[in-house]
């Protein structure tokens, strides 16, 4: 079992953070290129959720507490309400 090495906790946390950050970039790219506006909002909400997790891991609980209701609840709700008032597809 020589190949098993003890990994520091901070390395695991930073790796998870990097993974979240990379996934959030992918979600942002998908949100920008998506034609359907409803799906774009969903991608954007995924990005926000990942950001909230990153803030938590960065030990910024004050930001997490404001980010969770705003980004997961209020912001998608407002944008979805606005989309309902316009069109569901982006014009080419």
């Amino acid at each position, binding site marked *: 079992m020589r190949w098993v090495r003890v990994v520091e906790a901070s390395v695991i946390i930073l790796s998870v953070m*990097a993974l979240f950050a*990379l996934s959030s*970039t*992918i979600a942002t*790219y*998908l949100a920008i*290129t998506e034609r359907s506006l409803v799906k774009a909002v969903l991608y954007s909400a995924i990005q926000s959720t990942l950001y909230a997790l990153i803030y938590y891991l960065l030990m910024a*609980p*004050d930001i*997490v*507490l*404001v980010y*969770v*209701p*705003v980004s997961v*609840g*209020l912001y998608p*709700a*407002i944008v979805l*309400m*606005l989309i*309902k*008032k316009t069109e569901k597809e982006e014009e080419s």
Partner: protein
Amino acid sequence: MRRLLGLLVIVLFIMLFALVIASGGFGYEVPPSKVRELARQFLVYAYNPFNTTFTVKSPEAVTSIVWDFRGLDTLFETLVFYLAIIGALSLYRGIESEKRAEISFLGLSPIVKTVTRITTGIIIAVAASIALHGHLTPGGGFQGGATAAVAPLLILIVFSKYFLENLGLRKNVLLALRSIGLLGIGVTAFSALIIGLVANNPAYVFQNQPKPDAPIGLPAYIGDSLISGTLWFFNFFEMFAVAAGFTVIFLLLGIPEGEVLKQLREESEEH
């Protein structure tokens, strides 16, 4: 296919960029190994009974910064939010939402409604805890207010806009609540000055704790509970201002589009 290619390019670029930064390619180390001097001072002065010049008497460094060290910034942030809501209200000026008495058929299924009845209470309790303990634990007025605003949003989606209005949360009531919140923030900002004027002592606008040249300030403790002077009041009033502000926007956006257009047409025909 082009989308996938773009994604691949972006991911590769970020990974390379991260590798360069992590290996010290820009000449500095991330994450930094030491706390910066400014951050260290905030941490030292946030609750420091031995330094009466700078202390806030609040163990929560972030709230100390937000409402004391850089309190004016936060005041103007609140004003920006206030103006944003004024803008939204002016777009919907003169548009009245119709009143409905029979609303039990509206909204989602009874299961969702029952769950929402329970969770709404929990959300309000959590929001109050976040805001009122903002000077002790992470959180504060804006956080609490934003959390509290989720409860009316849930009711609006699950029951209906009319249910919310029948509960008494009408546009004018919410505007009054928001105005009380903003007025409270304004009064709290001037409270030390008012006390100073009455007691014939020098004091500052936005003063919190007593300072060496302004011996009158707000008390850090009421009885045995720590309220950190102005911080508790700022958080309390900010919660109302933010929660009511968000809810007004939801109520206005919740008016069916057809109704808005109809009223706008009638208005333009009148002129």
